[in-house]
């Protein structure tokens, strides 16, 4: 016979050979499992821990991880969602099998689009998406190294059925633990914090970020901080800013009264009058009177159809990054399949649509152009469940008290304060170096949030009280040093910022049109606004050279002026510059970019700007 071994067979055989030859039989863990089941004592594996050469320390400690699952929400009297989903093609009768498990019924391609349209019954300014638009085709992917030895044996217990909910630990103790863990994290990754800024500077910075004035004395007293954050006046402002962030500015497009009502609902959670998870679950399930406002806020965006809703909702409720999987499977973090993305989209569509077409079969386009049927489903890996979740209500119920939701909320609150989530993604240009310490911190905050019955003011106070919120801006990043700082110092300072060990100056608050002008000026071009267009012309006259030099001197301080690396290294795998820029657009959550962005990039390349600097500037142009 001697047919070649396929990779899966080889893996499986290797595992058995390790046992047969290495004399490493499966251990008898009966006693340990029974002990844990009866909660007699926490036990760890009997094997000696293997030394990990990464920067993290291997810690076998386990947290208790008991979670209370709430019961199903009460149905609202009427579903007020005015959120239309366009209908899709009806599958030919011959197609009956459900996609999945390798048996994929692929429908014949037709001219009908498979994207989701966006329509509302009220005059809310929302981008209309033409029906002809389809998701972009697939591009070459980075595939994980099968032989990667980067395996982390540390195990955190997952969700499980609840027997009882432990009380949260005393706030001050948790705060001290977070502080200590962060110092351990910085030590583990070899980053030195820039040092504590004066209290008044920190308070001023937080006022700009959160919109609330905190007492300087509260920075050293987490309980006082919690009291301030949960006061009615502060809670309202914080809730609005949080909503602004998770909707990426979309909440501004919602009608004022509806917005105020939604903010008040969320503010009640910050005031600790309501459980945040319960309120979110009701909003998501369409069972809250504010659900339509919520969905309207998170649906506003520049990308196609309802992609914004899917992406933002997945990030908040399940801490899942779906920026890549709309168009292709994601292998960079192993975080998802395209099929999972569209299955979730189908679930939302079916749960939120009203009227005809909501039950029509749902298709999406594969990278090779074929179309594939998908059934509504939340991927089991996203919610760590072995029971399939196939409808919106089931999913919303599942969210209450869940670790996924807690982790998503923790990261959103962290991002509110620091501008980036606590645990970012490998695909991102900016994310804290990831190791076990960071994972542990994230888990700790998430579990504390769960145990405190989703007291978001408590979590926010822990974040603000942590040493990360009070670091100084490194000299290399100060605006006055923009053009004189050594590149190595600058890079080192940015590494510290990424690891929350230093602060950044307030970023440029410019519209994209203004940023386009800045970038053009940087290469000596001159953009004028003519009507609704920006018209560019090369500035070649010597009479203007002095003025263009002057213009360069007054360019935004965070506009990249030099770069020898790409914004993200995986861009180097993509050969076509246009596709590189498109990917930056998806990464920024901006979806389809305007032609002016591509034109500006071309102008930069024609002006001799390097690929790295060109793409860094494009990133500066389009990032939120």
């Amino acid at each position, binding site marked *: 016979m001697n047919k070649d071994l396929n990779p899966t067979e080889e893996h499986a055989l290797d595992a058995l050979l390790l046992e047969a030859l290495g004399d490493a039989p499966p251990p008898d863990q009966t006693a340990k499992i029974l002990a844990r089941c009866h909660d007699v004592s926490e036990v760890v594996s009997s094997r000696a821990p293997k030394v990990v050469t990464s920067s993290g320390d291997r810690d076998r400690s386990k947290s208790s991880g008991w979670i209370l699952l709430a019961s199903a929400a009460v149905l609202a009297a009427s579903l007020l969602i005015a959120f239309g989903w366009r209908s899709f093609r009806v599958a030919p009768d011959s197609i009956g099998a459900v996609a999945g498990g390798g048996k994929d019924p692929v429908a014949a391609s037709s001219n009908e689009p498979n994207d989701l349209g966006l329509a509302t019954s009220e005059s809310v300014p929302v981008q209309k998406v033409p029906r002809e638009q389809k998701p972009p085709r697939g591009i070459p992917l980075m595939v994980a190294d099968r032989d990667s030895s980067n395996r982390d044996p540390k195990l955190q217990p997952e969700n499980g059925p609840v027997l009882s909910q432990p009380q949260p630990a005393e706030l001050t103790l948790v705060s001290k633990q977070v502080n200590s863990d962060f110092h351990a994290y910085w030590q583990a990754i070899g980053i030195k914090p820039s040092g504590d800024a004066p209290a008044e500077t920190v308070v001023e910075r937080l006022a700009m970020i959160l919109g609330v004035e905190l007492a300087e004395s509260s920075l050293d007293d987490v309980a006082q901080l919690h009291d301030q954050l949960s006061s009615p006046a502060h809670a309202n402002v914080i809730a609005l800013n949080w909503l602004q962030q998770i909707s990426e500015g979309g909440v501004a497009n919602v009608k004022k009264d509806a917005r105020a009502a939604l903010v008040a609902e969320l503010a009640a959670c910050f005031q600790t009058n309501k459980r945040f998870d319960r309120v979110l679950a009701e909003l998501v399930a369409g069972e809250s009177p504010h659900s339509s406002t919520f969905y309207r806020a998170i649906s506003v965006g520049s990308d196609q159809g309802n992609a914004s809703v899917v992406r933002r909702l997945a990030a908040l409720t399940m801490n899942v990054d779906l920026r890549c999987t709309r168009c292709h499977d994601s292998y960079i973090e192993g975080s998802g399949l395209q099929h999972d993305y569209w299955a979730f989209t189908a679930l939302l569509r079916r749960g939120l649509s009203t009227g005809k077409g909501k039950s029509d079969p749902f298709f999406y386009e594969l990278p090779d152009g074929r179309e594939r049927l998908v059934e509504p489903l939340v991927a*089991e890996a996203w919610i760590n469940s*072995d029971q399939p979740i196939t409808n919106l209500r089931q999913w919303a119920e599942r969210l209450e008290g869940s670790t996924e939701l807690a982790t998503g909320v923790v990261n959103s609150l962290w991002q509110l304060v620091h501008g980036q989530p606590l645990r970012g993604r490998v695909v991102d240009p900016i994310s804290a170096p990831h190791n076990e310490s960071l994972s542990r911190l994230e888990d700790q905050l998430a579990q504390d949030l769960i145990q405190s019955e989703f007291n978001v003011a408590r979590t926010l106070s822990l974040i603000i009280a942590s040493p990360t919120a009070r670091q100084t801006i490194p000299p290399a990043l100060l605006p006055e040093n923009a053009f004189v700082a050594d590149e190595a110092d600058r890079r080192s300072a940015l590494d510290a910022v990424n690891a929350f060990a230093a602060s950044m100056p307030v970023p440029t608050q410019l519209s994209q049109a203004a940023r386009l002008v800045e970038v053009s000026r940087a290469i000596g071009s001159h953009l004028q606004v003519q009507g609704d267009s920006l018209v560019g012309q090369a500035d070649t006259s010597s009479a203007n050279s002095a003025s263009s030099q002057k213009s360069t001197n007054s360019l935004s301080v965070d506009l990249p002026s030099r770069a020898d690396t790409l914004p993200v290294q995986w861009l180097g795998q993509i050969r076509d510059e246009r596709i590189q820029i498109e990917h930056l657009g998806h990464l920024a959550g901006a979806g389809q970019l305007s032609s002016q962005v591509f034109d500006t990039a071309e102008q930069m390349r024609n002006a001799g700007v390097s690929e790295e600097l060109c793409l860094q500037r494009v990133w500066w142009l389009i990032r939120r």
Partner: protein
Amino acid sequence: MNASGVVELGPAELIERHQNGVWRYLRMLGCEAATADDLTQETFLRVLRRDTFVQHSDAATSSYLRRTAYNLLVSHHRKHGRVQNVPEPSQLDEIWNRWAGKDLSGDKAVETLRDCLSALTERAQLALRMRFADDASRNEIGSALEITEHGARNLMQRAKQQLRDCVEAKLEQDKDE
């Protein structure tokens, strides 16, 4: 006995019956031994704490446990932001059923593998022992056998194919008996 007329195993019996299978399944998915230990524990904890879990049959229980273990592993990788290629469960289930389907634990497959190893040439046995027992590199194996690294790789690949065929043939034979 449950409503289906099946005599259900108690927790200790359930663990003893299925833990080897779950552990080996996790190892086949690429887990290190320590992670497989931990996830095996978690798998049983989840299942034992689930009120709705019913033991329809040994095979059904084994499948349910393996699926739970798979989900835990995927979640574990996701949680730690690791880049891992985890085989599709359907592919691995097919291999599992071929090799461990009869006794559900894989004990028979490992025993058969040991028998089949002894049928290989001495050079092949040495190469595999160096690779799996001593964690030697291909270079080291090549030097010991006085062949190139590439030659060592090919030798081990051929040996593994022979082992696969031998194990499957013997298991098939035992099934028929």
